[in-house]
């Protein structure tokens, strides 16, 4: 298979945008990605757009606002991995030799769509029984704390760290650091999870240009290699399933390491799907970035903070930067690209050479997740 590269990136500020539509957000992100590498818009041959709640033909609606019509557009819904899967599809089209320049974008105007808890599909039996996404992760947190003998304050440190990172990110939804006491004292959502351990409803959009090696040669100093982009779906939960270790994340990451020809020890920074505090723990241990049961000790020791051994979510993650569902997976790659280029400003990770992005979302009855993706970017 041929090599693919990320050439241009763009994203809007993440946050509440009551006076801006999803179409305007998406168009702003696409324009920034085009300008970022200076590519001629006429070179873009196809587009893939990730979203969850944006309705019919969101990709075409955004691109019409940009002024790009006629090209093949594919809209992708895959729960919280929608944007990441749009990027994967774009990369496959380039790898296959079908196209040389493909746009991947993600958009979500979540604050106008949702109030209260987000759930899996409302007709699923588990949702009918009262399951919420926060409830799933609350049960995982409860079980992890039980299995590894850690307390709630240790889990809450993940929120403290990511909001500390977000304070350095001008595009983040939350730019105010919080203390562990504030996290624990915030409103209960699903015990043990509190409000500040849950990613917020956020509006935003992000876009990247995926290009072939031939095109990348024209924009060499702007390009990073997308060395792997893998996707798996969830598996049946049985009494043998271990809620404290994500086999799905492990398998998706293992496939990505194999494709990229690297191992977890080569990763210099990662953007992982911290939709809830405990989620980050499960992601990094599942992906082999930290040993099982040890991540929270590493967080407490500062190893996962910018300046530490292996910074996790330097952008602020979903907890700090925000979580506009369809845009999230693309925004992770925007951050990693800027980090690998050395353009991340106050939150620059020194020596960033290999970045890993992980998304995981959704649930169907009896199955632990809908979709999990891992992308590996190499300078």
């Amino acid at each position, binding site marked *: 298979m041929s090599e693919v590269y990320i050439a241009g990136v763009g994203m809007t500020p993440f946050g509440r945008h009551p006076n801006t539509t999803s179409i305007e957000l998406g168009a702003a992100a696409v324009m920034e990605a085009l300008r970022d590498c200076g590519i001629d818009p006429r070179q873009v041959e196809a587009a893939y757009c990730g979203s969850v709640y944006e309705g019919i033909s969101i990709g075409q609606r955004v691109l019409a606002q940009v002024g790009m019509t006629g090209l093949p557009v594919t809209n992708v819904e895959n729960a919280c991995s929608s944007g990441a899967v749009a990027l994967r599809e774009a990369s496959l089209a380039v790898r296959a030799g079908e196209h040389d320049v493909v746009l991947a974008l993600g958009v979500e105007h979540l604050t106008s769509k949702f*109030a*209260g*808890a987000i*759930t899996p599909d*409302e007709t699923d*039996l*588990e*949702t*009918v*029984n*009262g*399951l*919420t996404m*926060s*409830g799933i992760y*609350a*049960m*995982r947190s*409860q*079980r992890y704390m*039980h299995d590894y003998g850690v307390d709630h304050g240790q889990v809450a440190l993940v929120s403290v760290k990511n909001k500390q990172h977000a304070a350095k990110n001008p595009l983040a939804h939350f730019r105010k650091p919080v203390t562990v006491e504030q996290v624990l004292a915030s*409103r*209960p*959502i*699903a*015990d*043990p*999870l509190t409000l500040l351990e849950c990613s917020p409803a956020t509006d935003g959009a992000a876009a990247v240009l995926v290009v072939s090696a031939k095109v990348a040669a024209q924009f060499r100093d702007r390009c990073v290699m997308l060395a792997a982009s893998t996707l798996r779906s969830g598996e*049946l*939960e*049985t*009494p043998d*399933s271990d*809620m404290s270790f994500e086999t799905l994340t492990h398998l998706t990451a293992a496939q990505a390491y194999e494709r990229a020809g690297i191992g977890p020890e080569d990763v210099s920074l990662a953007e992982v799907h911290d939709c809830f505090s405990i989620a980050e723990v499960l992601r990094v241990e599942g992906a082999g970035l930290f040993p099982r049961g040890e991540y929270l000790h590493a967080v407490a020791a500062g190893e996962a903070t910018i300046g530490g051994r292996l910074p996790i979510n330097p952008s602020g993650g979903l907890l700090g930067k925000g979580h506009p569902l369809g845009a999230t997976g693309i925004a992770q790659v925007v951050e990693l690209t800027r980090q690998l280029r050395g353009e991340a400003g106050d939150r620059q990770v020194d020596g960033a050479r290999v970045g890993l992005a992980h998304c995981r979302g959704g649930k169907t*009855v*009896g199955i632990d997740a809908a979709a999990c993706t891992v992308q590996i970017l190499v300078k």
Partner: protein
Amino acid sequence: MSDVIGVGPDGDYCLIGGRCTHCSRAVFPLREMCVHCLSPDSEPIPLCRDGAVYSYTVIHQAAPGFSVPYVLASVDLAAGVRLIGQVADPPGEVAIGTAVELKVEPTGEDSAGRRVIGFRFHVSKEGHI
């Protein structure tokens, strides 16, 4: 829910799952093929009602239409399936490992005021197993 509720050997209502005639493993609900081995030969079985709490939470923020707080649990049934459902008992009664019994019963009303039949877990009188 009608396709997943039946009557067990003791004459009481129970959930209906599937058991693969090839690999013998159980699933809920019954699927077209066995999730474990893709054999097309699964048969419906009544799921026994005894189980243990694998993990749990108290939901304080729910989807519209639910009254909070309520206890939600992931329960391992002795039949070999893991199920998510509400626990009828108050939060203090539930912990990891608590023995529970699944009961098919009215769980609420729909928007037209009709009773909704579903399943809930009740803490077993015997306590922890």
